[in-house]
């Protein structure tokens, strides 16, 4: 990875001009459309179920399941006014933003120290950060639960704000190390000669140049926090402190009668914020995802 979000360049016309149109239709366009259909259908199904009145939901004989007549907002209204959904939404936003900010700040310092200051042993620390990135939450949640209990922050938002950076900091540091590496050393040397301190160099030279990297790391961290499940499930007990994924699964699913309309509405509303964020920053997402892999 060399620079800020890589633009997907279209210069690789390749040799497609050698293929005839019907041939391309069968070998490229058709399979691609099948892929896109399969990958997007669950979202369509989620959305159409969320606005279906209950009497149409399971009546496949009189109404086509793929379409909706008389769409309704009753499921969404139910979610917003008769459940704790709004507070789950607020919790998720609050926790994700706080965890992202903490992770970004610590990662900027760590990445700068490892990549640019090259203190004694920075190579080993860099390797350690990479290994930390590979530790999955499923083997940490039990000891973390005991620690959370011991610290007296069980069932608080703080429990999640403090534990999410365990997977955000290694990732963001790793990503930012890549960005810092792409910024020429000469700029820093100029600043040093002009009498700038390391702090000033970081704040006034390096950070303005790595804004794209910060955006990538930031939105990616936000999405990872938003999607997190196992910590939120284990560390949070009371309904008003739950996050959206946990709340939808544990509170909207009751008894044997599944209320698919409100479940799908909950899934849809919980997905929309990250999808909207994603649609604005597609290139940043792609560069942060591939950046972590390509380094």
């Amino acid at each position, binding site marked *: 990875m060399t620079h800020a979000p*890589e633009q*997907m360049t*279209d210069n*690789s016309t*390749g*040799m*497609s001009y050698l293929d005839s149109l019907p041939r*391309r239709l069968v070998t490229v*366009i058709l*399979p691609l459309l099948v*892929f896109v259909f399969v990958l*997007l259908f*669950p*979202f369509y*199904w989620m959305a159409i179920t969320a606005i279906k009145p209950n009497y149409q939901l399971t009546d496949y004989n009189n109404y086509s*399941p*793929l379409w909706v007549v008389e769409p309704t907002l009753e499921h969404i209204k139910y979610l917003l006014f008769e459940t704790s959904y709004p507070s789950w939404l607020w919790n998720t936003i609050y926790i994700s933003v706080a965890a992202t900010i903490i992770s970004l700040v610590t*990662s900027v*310092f*760590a990445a700068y*120290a490892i990549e640019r*200051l*090259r203190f004694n042993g*920075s190579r080993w*620390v860099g390797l350690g950060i990479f290994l*930390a990135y*590979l*530790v999955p939450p*499923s*083997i*940490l949640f*039990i*000891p973390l*639960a*005991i*620690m959370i209990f011991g610290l007296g922050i069980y069932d608080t938002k703080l429990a999640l704000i403090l534990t999410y*950076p*365990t997977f955000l*900091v*290694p990732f963001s*540091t790793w990503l930012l190390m890549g960005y810092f590496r792409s910024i020429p050393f000469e700029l820093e040397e100029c600043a040093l000669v002009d009498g700038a301190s390391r*702090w000033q160099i970081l704040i006034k030279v390096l950070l303005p140049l790595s804004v794209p990297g910060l955006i990538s790391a930031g939105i990616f961290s936000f999405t990872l926090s938003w*999607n997190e*499940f*196992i910590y939120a499930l284990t560390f949070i007990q009371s309904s008003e402190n739950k996050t959206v994924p946990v709340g*939808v*699964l544990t509170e909207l699913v009751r008894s044997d009668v599944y209320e698919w309309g409100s479940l799908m509405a*909950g*899934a849809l509303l*919980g*997905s929309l914020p*990250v*999808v909207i964020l*994603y*649609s604005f920053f597609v290139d940043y997402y*792609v560069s942060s*995802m591939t950046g972590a*892999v*390509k*380094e």
Partner: protein
Amino acid sequence: MANVTATEPSPSRSFWAGIGQGRHVIGILFMLPAAVFLLFFLTYPLGLGVWLGFTDTRIGSPGVFIGLENYASLMGDSLFWLVVFNTILYTVAASILKFALGLWLALLLNENMPFKAFFRAVVLLPWVVPTVLSAIAFWWIFDSQYSIISWALIKMGLISAPINFLGDVANARASVIAANVWRGIPFVAISLLAGLQTISPSLHEAATLDGATNWQRFRYITLPMLSPIIAVVMTFSVLFTFTDFQLIYVLTRGGPLNSTHLMATLSFQRAIPGGSLGEGAAIAVAMIPFLLGAILFSYFGLQRRKWQQGGAD
């Protein structure tokens, strides 16, 4: 950094300025917040987890050291071995499918066509949306009575009764693997696409002039050039599939007959609802050897990539 100024700086100031500019000291100072954080919330719990595996800690009662008793009882537990088998089956099947379909999708997206950017953007959606929420959508898609897949197949005349997706051992396994593959394809495809774009088209042109067929170009140019990134992407994919929890917890909770129980879900079930933190931790620790294998694999993949790019070491 000597202060060459007209006024002589006071000794203490230059001392602190010297400290402030020293690479090593300030480097360690900058590293401190992240290091303290990771040591306290990542390294320490990792060690604590290994220790817990040797104790009989339960919720509400601090345990005592019992040696390998947890592991010994797991060795004799047929459910544990079933779960290990399930986890390996799930990981291998899902990873192979993700790789094959993801590579295919990457090759398709690399073609020149209209609305290219749009296609690239929408295929990543399954990966962006919270897994739990898309898994709930799959739960509804896999409903035993009102599944939309059953409905479509009945309409086409392929089957006569709804498929019992999550209620039957083989079907449940296939369904959770399908949902996992659905979510994993975008990651593999977009990462491999980034690798594909670094392959110069002139290699393909030269090969075509020499009379290479499409298959030969794929086999002897694309695949070797892509292999380092494949190694890394698949390591990540295997790692996250092996430790998967969310999808199973939503779709089946391990059922039917524990046929979809994975190591992570069993660990959770024994530790949190079951209360045996020690035993749950032992199951989690049993995942570590597999993870280490994957990480070593990744390490050699990375080394090879650097070597291929001409970087030293």
